[in-house]
């Protein structure tokens, strides 16, 4: 599992490779907060290479969403597979996040 960060225009894109669970959520949180501290405002987390997310991972996304919004920024999500989509629907977090089918659509939505 790893997180890679790249920049596409003004958007910081984070790819989550593997799982986003209790054992690695802090790593993702820190990486995004570091970028936020540098002054970045637009964030996209791409889950196209993600296996599954647990409640801790969902909690970190909620936390990041709050912190980014507090700094006047935006967080968008993209490429949820069927399992992840179900997870977001079950927890109703699909109503909290702006979720796109593809990275391109997400990037265009900023």
């Amino acid at each position: 599992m790893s997180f890679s960060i790249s920049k596409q225009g003004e958007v910081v894109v984070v790819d989550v490779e593997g799982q986003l669970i209790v054992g690695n959520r802090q790593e993702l949180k820190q990486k995004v907060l570091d970028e936020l501290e540098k002054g970045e405002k637009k964030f996209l987390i791409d889950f196209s290479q993600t296996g599954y997310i647990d409640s801790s991972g969902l909690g970190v996304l909620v936390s990041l969403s709050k912190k980014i919004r507090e700094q006047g920024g935006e967080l968008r999500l993209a490429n949820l597979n069927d399992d992840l989509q179900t997870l977001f629907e079950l927890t109703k977090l699909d109503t909290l996040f702006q979720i796109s089918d593809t990275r391109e659509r997400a990037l265009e939505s900023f």
Partner: protein
Amino acid sequence: MGDSRVALDVEIPSDVRYIEGVIELATRKCRELSIPPRKCSLNVRVALTEALSNAILRGNGDAADKHVRVRAVVNDDSLVFDVTDEGPGFDLSADWPDPTKPENLMMEDGRGLFLMQRLMDRVERFQSDGNVVRLTLFRE
């Protein structure tokens, strides 16, 4: 109900870094038992991760010298996971906040038990040589 057999029996140190390995093993076993792929990739993986992290962080208080045991028993009707920690247990029937209510959506914690209960057919907790959380998935 047909004969039951043990499909998995592992003990791990109380450390969240061990969770992923156990989940991988459990998911593989789940697929070998011809349980629908979606139930293995979503229901088992997420619910068992929740039970394990709860056992390690809350049950065992993140104490590195403690252990968590995961045992899976399968029969014609169901796949049952017992996750045992060394803690005093918790009240499953307590009035836990519903994380899907609009006022709770921004909560960072509090979705673990909810997910176990939504993704498994039955969730139980009892004492038996430790605090056991039992997750049951019917094979349909």
